[in-house]
């Protein structure tokens, strides 16, 4: 059995969790088990029902202890389900939550961890994967020595699944102890507006120092992102300068993204930034410096002034959509 740990936001399955369903279905087929979905939370029956449209079986742990995502409660719930169902593999999406919980589950199950993988195969009964290393400059191929294996899957790599026959939802109780609940979430701050989550965005528009200042983001980056339905990203220099929040930083010390389209505006293309975006399928760079390293990492480049080019591009994209 392959357990697929789904995540949700505002009562809806996250896109990365749907991709995880696709990865889990494929893995279950190779391993010879069933793909089983897992939904954790409080009052999340609707999410479980949504997941059951894609999977024959969904386990639902609905408990006030799971009202907030906390690594230890999630670890207990997932480990219990993995043990009672003799799971061969436990799949997380490699966002902040998955990267935080998967290692704890691996320790709890005494299982190998394949982290942030970009492909999955079964070879001679063992699970193998590819992943990136050395600031995404190296692809490594790794193999788990034993089963069960815990896996986190990089978002935006696997496609979206088609719905299947309506599956069953089973409520499963889990006992949490005081230790599981030591961490309290005392405050949450969400980014304002209905913005696309950066790591899940299929289009990302990023700005570097070349956009000139915070107003460059307001006047250039945001309108283009709006026209493309894109997530907004920034380079470290921009975040260090206080123009944008850290949560938007892409690169070695920020987030890694792998969208279909990455548009870099006034971004020079330092190695540390490239490491966060070089899995993007198509890269566009606009920069006035013809020697900027970003052009070597780009599919399409225009040398010129962002203040002139970006509004033109935004208009052209808007016309495309209308």
């Amino acid at each position, binding site marked *: 059995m392959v357990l697929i740990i789904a995540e949700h936001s505002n009562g809806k399955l996250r896109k990365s969790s749907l991709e995880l369903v696709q990865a889990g279905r494929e893995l279950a087929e190779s391993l010879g088990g069933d793909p089983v979905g897992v939904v954790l939370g409080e009052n999340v029956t609707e999410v479980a029902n949504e997941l059951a449209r894609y999977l024959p079986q969904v386990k639902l742990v609905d408990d006030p202890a799971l009202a907030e995502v906390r690594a230890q409660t999630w670890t207990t719930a997932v480990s219990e389900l993995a043990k009672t169902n003799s799971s061969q593999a436990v799949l997380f999406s490699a966002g*902040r939550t998955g*990267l935080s919980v998967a290692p704890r589950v691996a320790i709890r199950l005494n299982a190998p961890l394949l982290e942030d993988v970009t492909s999955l195969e079964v070879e001679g009964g063992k699970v193998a994967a590819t992943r990136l290393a050395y600031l995404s400059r*190296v692809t490594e191929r790794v193999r788990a020595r034993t089963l069960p294996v815990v896996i986190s899957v990089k978002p935006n790599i696997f496609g979206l699944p088609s719905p299947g026959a309506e599956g069953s939802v089973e409520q499963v109780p889990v006992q949490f102890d005081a230790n599981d609940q030591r961490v309290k979430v005392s405050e949450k701050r969400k980014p304002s507006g209905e913005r696309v989550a950066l790591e899940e965005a299929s289009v990302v528009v990023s700005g570097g120092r070349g956009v000139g200042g915070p107003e460059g983001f307001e006047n250039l980056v945001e309108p283009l992102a709006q026209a493309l339905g894109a997530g907004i990203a920034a380079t470290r220099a921009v975040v260090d300068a206080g123009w944008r929040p850290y949560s938007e930083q892409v690169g070695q010390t920020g987030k890694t993204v792998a969208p279909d389209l990455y548009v870099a505006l006034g971004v020079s293309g330092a190695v540390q930034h490239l490491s966060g975006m070089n899995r993007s399928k*198509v890269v566009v760079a606009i920069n006035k410096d013809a020697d900027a390293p970003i052009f070597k990492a*780009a599919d399409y480049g225009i040398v010129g002034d962002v203040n002139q080019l970006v509004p033109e591009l935004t208009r052209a994209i808007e016309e495309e959509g209308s």
Partner: protein
Amino acid sequence: MKIVTILKQVPDAEARLRPAPEGVDLSGVSFVIDGMDEYGVEQALRIREGGTEAEVVALALGPARFEEAIRTALAMGADRAIHIETDSRLDPISQARVLAKVIEQEGADLVMVGGKQADWDSSALGPAVAEALGWPHSDWTTGMELREGSLTTVHDADEGTERLEMPLPAVITTQQGLNEPRYPTLPNIMKAKRKELRKTSLEEVGGAEALVELVGESLESRERRNVMLDGDPTEAVRELVRRLRDEAKVLAK
């Protein structure tokens, strides 16, 4: 209190990696203390400097060359260091078990570790160490405040940021934004040479088996089209949109 700060030594971000038949050739590459670990060392020092009686112990698991990174931490101000020397390639989960044993022996109250290491591109070590110890953790931490026996942290979640409250002992994974790490001064570099750096081996701390094997490595080489669109800005933009739609097929028609 005792603060253990876990260190790695990684290739410099600008270092040129070369392909080799057996994987990636790291000979001739310059190595540095991992940038994300530096935030942890700095934070431990600030706790000590802030009036809390604290001993800061740097802990590393890796080959002999790691000593340079350990000396950097000592020169920044760590009190002493422990180096579990090994050439074995262990995954973060098996490393976490080894490190947890030493942390338990040390009787630490707080563990700092970089949020993501720049060699194996993994953020698993912190949460895995926390689980091996049975402690809570805060990952991707950008702010922290120590109170009597407890901690308040600010960390990045999937959607925005959260403030977390947790009791000690705990594990904190650190990242940019938490502080600005100091540079070691020359007198402190000299002083660091006399500080205790205890060497031990993997066998001495009970050994470990890798749970994951490395099958192969290759340099990431994504072929890019490298098409430069020039001429009149309006034309260049039109041509870009046309190519994104028809050639790259990333715009819906």
